């Protein structure tokens, strides 16, 4: 049956995956949030330069700091996941390796984000 369709008709028949715009938009929304949160984070780290362990624990335990740190880690790693996904899609040729790399990327970024978030919460709630 496909023999009777031109290549372009076949491509059109398949339609789009309808997920391209979502990836594009999420990358940009997380970029703007990253911009704000990382500037706050950079300023905080700079002002904590030379601070002792107790000062840093005190800082992390501030409820606003705790929430901002959790948001930063989640947003940052989601942005990294989206960005590195495009790099893998562009440069990894074989379909199998590509799929495997993308699964690994999702797992690694998820594990790192969870490590960061759990650490922040442990310090914040820890006695």
């Amino acid at each position, binding site marked *: 049956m496909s023999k009777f369709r031109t*290549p372009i008709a076949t491509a059109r028949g398949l339609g789009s995956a309808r997920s391209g715009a979502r990836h594009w938009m999420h990358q*940009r929304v997380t*970029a*703007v949030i990253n*911009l704000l949160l*990382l500037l706050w*984070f*950079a300023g905080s*780290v*700079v*002002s*904590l*330069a*030379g601070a002792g*362990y107790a000062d*840093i*624990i005190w800082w*992390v335990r501030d409820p606003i700091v705790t929430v901002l*740190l959790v948001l930063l*880690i989640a947003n*940052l*790693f989601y942005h*990294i996941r989206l*960005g*590195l996904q495009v*790099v893998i899609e562009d440069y990894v040729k074989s379909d199998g390796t590509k799929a495997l790399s993308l699964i690994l990327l999702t797992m690694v970024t998820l594990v*790192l*984000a969870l*490590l*960061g978030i*759990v*650490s*922040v919460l*442990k*310090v914040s709630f*820890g006695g």
Partner: protein
Amino acid sequence: MASTRRPLSPHLQIWRWGLHMALSIAHRTTGVGSSLGALIIVWGLVAIAAGPDSFSTFKMVTTSLLGRIVLFGITLSMMLHMCTGVRHLVMDTGRALDIKTNRQTGILAIVAAIVLTLGLWVAAYWFAGLI
């Protein structure tokens, strides 16, 4: 697939390198490079949660000469990614796409990234009481 051999558009190696191309690939490489910064942030948070000993190891490594060089590179990478990223957000709205403005915003992004990086490091040294 179409069987006729159509002429392909000239690829990367045909063009003379320009600022716009350099910044485009720099945005990608600094994005990958900055991921290393995210890894260090997580390491720091894990070290803080693990206790004073782990934190002092983290602090020793990151404040060593090699640690500072790597952190300076990552700061520059993050700031350049941030500035070229903002430039991309502007271009996403259809602005700054003509050659002259595009070149100006490109130079502005590089200058801003260097100023921000140096500013953060000078401030960090000042807060640490080293200058």
